[in-house]
Structure formats: C-alpha cells, structure tokens
C-alpha cells in the first residue's frame, strides 16, 4: 500500500481572487450596486486531502467552486491547478483540465438531464474526451456505477433520472464524476437536499471513494458538523472573506473569529443527553 506520497504538494492554489456581481435590478440606477462575492480570497489545497469550505448561503462558497471549475470568470487574482494558471485555459488545455476536475452537485433532482438515461449520462464525458472503445466504455461505466454504490450496474443503464430515488440520483451524479477518474473533486453541498439517513450514507460513500481513489476533495457545506466528520482542514467563509482556516479540530476546538464562534454556538446542544450518554 502506498503511503501518502509527497503530502505537501499543492494541487490547487487560490491566490487573492476577487469577484463581484452587478445587481441586475439596479442596472439602470445612477450608481449600479456592486456586490462583492469574493474579497481577495486565498487558499491552498494539498494533494490527497479533504478540504472543507464552510459558510452560510450567499457567503461566496459556491461562487468560489464555480471559479475553480472555470464556470465563471473573475476579476483579479489567480487560480493555479497543478501549477497551471486556469484563467486563460482554452481549447485543448481546457479540455485536459476538465478531465481532471469534476463536480458533485448539490441538487440531485436537477443535476441530471431528464432526457438522458443513466448510461447515456455517464457515456457523455467519455465520448467528449474520446476515452476508450465501445466495450471499454461500457466497462468504465459499470465500474463507476458500482463504485458509487449502484449495484448491479446494468440494472441502472436504461433507467432515467425520474425513475430513481433522491439518494440513487446523487449516487448516479457521483458515478458521472468518477468516469473520468479525476484528480480533484468539488462536492458542493452534496447532501443538503437529502434526508438525514440517506445523506449519511452518501458521506460514507464519499469517504470510501476518497480513500480508494486517492482523490483530492474540496467539500463545500454550511454544516460545521458535516465538515468535522469529513474534512482534514477547513476554511470558514463569511460574506466573501475567509475569516478562519486551519485543521478541522483546531478550528472547532479553538475558534479565532467571532463568526466561527457564532456558528458553533448555533449548533444543537443536546445538553440533556450529554450527561446520560457516554461519548
């Protein structure tokens, strides 16, 4: 078994990234309102780790994910993936980048095209990147589905998203991210739309994938408890600013910023249960 090779190697470097939006509704006002989504944000993610980004809705955490995925442009700063600046990626280089970075979306009900079967959904990335022959493609698809916990994979080939339950859809979305064997995966609140017991199983699945495939994860969540469960290091983001970052235990045990402390205070306490139940 390979131990962590070069644990300090940086896979993603976000440096002083700045992103603003124009408030569309006030476009015709004299002074158009500008909303700062990300205010000179910097962070570094090491190869092989799980990095958590914790923040409320509207804090800019999803915006950051979209920038890293190159779904949107940003004004200033730089994002380097494997030492390559992604800002000006085009054509072939962009395609190569797309192959390495994948997304696990938030809403399993909206992230699969209702008109494509599961097989076709998983086939699409392969045919875009011209990977494998017909037979090997089928094999890759089966492997991904099984890795995502959809067993037996062939049963799901002909199904359409609306024929699956929420948990199954999220697994299919994970399988799609897996077909390209990415180095880096961004999970954007992957369980916020799912019921508690199902979302717990999705977490376990992600941990399993992370361990077996040696993928680096950027895990985005509003839930500190989930971040604690899953992440090696976390950063807390509040209104476009990273207010705190460090190893998970350190941030939770010894929060430095007021916002983090408020977040921790807002968690359910169960003071009644603590005394009677052993930890």
């Amino acid at each position: 078994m390979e131990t962590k090779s070069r644990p300090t190697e940086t896979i993603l470097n976000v440096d002083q990234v700045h992103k603003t939006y124009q408030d569309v509704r006030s476009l015709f006002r004299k002074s158009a309102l500008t909303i700062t989504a990300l205010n000179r944000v910097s962070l570094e993610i090491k190869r092989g780790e799980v990095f958590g980004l914790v923040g409320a809705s509207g804090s800019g955490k999803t915006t950051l994910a979209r920038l890293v995925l190159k779904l949107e442009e940003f004004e200033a700063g730089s994002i380097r993936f494997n030492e390559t600046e992604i800002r000006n990626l085009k054509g072939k280089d962009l395609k190569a980048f797309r192959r390495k970075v994948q997304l696990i979306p938030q809403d399993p009900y909206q992230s699969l095209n209702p008109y494509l079967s599961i097989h076709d959904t998983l086939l699409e990335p392969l045919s875009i990147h011209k990977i494998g022959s017909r037979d090997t493609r089928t094999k890759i698809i089966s492997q991904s589905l099984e890795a995502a916990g959809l067993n037996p994979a062939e049963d799901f080939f002909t199904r359409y998203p609306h024929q699956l339950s929420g948990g199954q859809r999220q697994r299919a979305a994970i399988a799609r991210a897996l077909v390209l064997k990415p180095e880096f995966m961004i999970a954007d609140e992957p369980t916020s739309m799912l019921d508690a017991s199902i979302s717990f199983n999705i977490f376990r699945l992600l941990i399993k994938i992370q361990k077996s495939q040696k993928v680096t994860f950027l895990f985005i969540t509003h839930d500190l408890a989930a971040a604690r469960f899953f992440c090696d290091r976390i950063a807390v983001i509040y209104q476009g600013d990273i207010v705190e970052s460090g190893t998970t235990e350190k941030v939770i045990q010894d929060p430095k910023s007021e916002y983090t402390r408020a977040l921790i205070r807002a968690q359910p306490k169960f003071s009644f249960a603590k005394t009677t139940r052993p930890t």
Partner: protein
Amino acid sequence: MTLRRLILRRSLEILVIFFLILSGLFFLFHLAPGDPVSRMVDPSMSPEDAELLVSQLGLDQPLWLRYLYYLKNFCTGDFGISFHYGRPVVEVIGERLPNTILLFTTSIILSALAGISWGKLVAWYKGKRVDTVVTITSLVCHTLFLPWIALLFIWVFAYKIGGFPLNGMISPELWSDPASGWFVKALDILHHMLLPLLTLSIIHVGEYLLIMRSSMLETLSEDYILTARAKGLSEKRIRNRHAGPNASLPVVTNVGLSLAFSINGGALTETVFTWPGIGRELIFAVSNNDYPLALASFLFISIVVLVANLVVDVLYAYLDPRIRY
C-alpha cells in the same frame, strides 16, 4: 426603481423602437421595386403641382437626403397629400385617430375587466358544470373568425331584427339637424358603436377569461393562499383580496403582448362596420394604392400600439410592487 424612472426608461425604449419602424418603412418604400416618386405623388396631379411636391418631399434628391427630408417631414407632420381625398394626409388621420382610440380602448378595457372578473369566478368553480360550459364557450368566442362574426352580427341584428345601424359612426341627418344637442349625438355614436364593440369584445373576453382562469388556478395553489386559509379568512375574501389581484397580473401582461394582434382585429372590425377609424383607412388606402395615406396610417397605428403598451407597463408596475421599489 421608482415608477417615474420606469416610465422614463420605457418611453425611451419605445422612442427607439418607433424610430426603427419609421426608418424601416422609409427604406421599404424607397427600395421596393417600382418608382418611389409615383408612390408619393398623385398621378392625377398637374405637372407643376407634382414638381412642387417632389421637391418638397425631396424625392429628386439622393437616398440619404431623402431620408433626412422624410424624418424632417415626419417631425413637422407633413405626410403629403392623400390621392383619394386630395387633402393633406395629416388632416385625414387627425379625424380618424380619435374614432379608433374610442372603439379600441373601450373594447380592450371592457373585455379585460369582464375577463378578469368572470375568470376569477369560474376558476373558483373548477370542475363544476359552470366551469366546463364557460370554458368551452370562451374557447369558441376566442377562436371565432372576426370578420365573419361581424358580418353575422350585421346580418342578424341590423338586417333581420333591425334596430341597429348597418354601418358608419353617426347618422348624418341627425347631426345636420341643429336641434339635436350633444347628448343626442353621444347616444347616436353609442348606438352605432354597440355592434362593433360587441364584436371586438367577444373575441377578447374569451381570451382574457381563459388566461385569468388558468392564472387564478395557479395562484390558488400558491403558499400565501394557504396562509390566508389558515388565518381563517372567508373564501370570498381569499378570492377577492388575495388570489384575484395576483392572478390578474398575467392578464395585464397578456393584454400588452397581444395588443398588436388586437389592432389587426380592430382594423377588420372598422372595415366591416365602416367605422371611420384609422385601421379602416389603412386597409382602404392599401387597396387603392393611396401610398401617402397608407404610410401615415401605419405609422400612427404603430404609435397607438406603442403608447398602449406603455400604459399597460405602467399599470403592471402599479399593480405589482415587486417591479417598482
């Protein structure tokens, strides 16, 4: 955005659109096969008069100069002389435009009000017999072929039953009689207007009622209706105070969107009932190759539609606080 700012912005947009229509028409008239001079100058005119008109309209100039002349003439209200009437076009339009506005706006307002209030009621009785009957009736009304139903009305009400004038807007003998006061005259116009009004409204009521009905059904499944129910409000109050105002918004939008289509119907109605409006004038001018009149009528019809659109937009902003803030 405040209401005033909204009006300003929309007016600006409308000016731009109108300018584009104005220019588009010019190039259409001057680039279409055939001689633009013969289009704008009455063939029966004396050569001297014709020459005067040609230089006045700049028809002997190159295209871009002609275009500037055209813009200038539009601004000064000079549209040339109607071939048929032998009078300045702007005079003819000035007489016709108020008649069109009277008939058109009355029918749109009446049918919108009727459509909204009936649609509201019908939606309340969804699935009941009333609903089915009214829905299908509105469907039929909405799809009736307008000129035909106009002919039918003339045949039935004016010819078979009688009591309604066959055509026109006024009875000349009544108006030439010095004894008849303004009230009698107004009644006379109303008498002439009833059938055209009925024709136009029947088509529109059906449309607006159907929109209101489905909009109402959608609104009734909104969460705030549940809130209103939970508050213990009576069904009538829910319908009139909460569902109704929200549901009528799409009707207002739709009135605006279909205005251009409605004016088609207006022109047809005017033609069949020989109502002396601008739409009939356009159709008449086109049939008789009276180009100056046709051009000007079209421009003024566009202005009517654009202004009506502005009014609808303002009304919408007034009804929906989310638009203005």
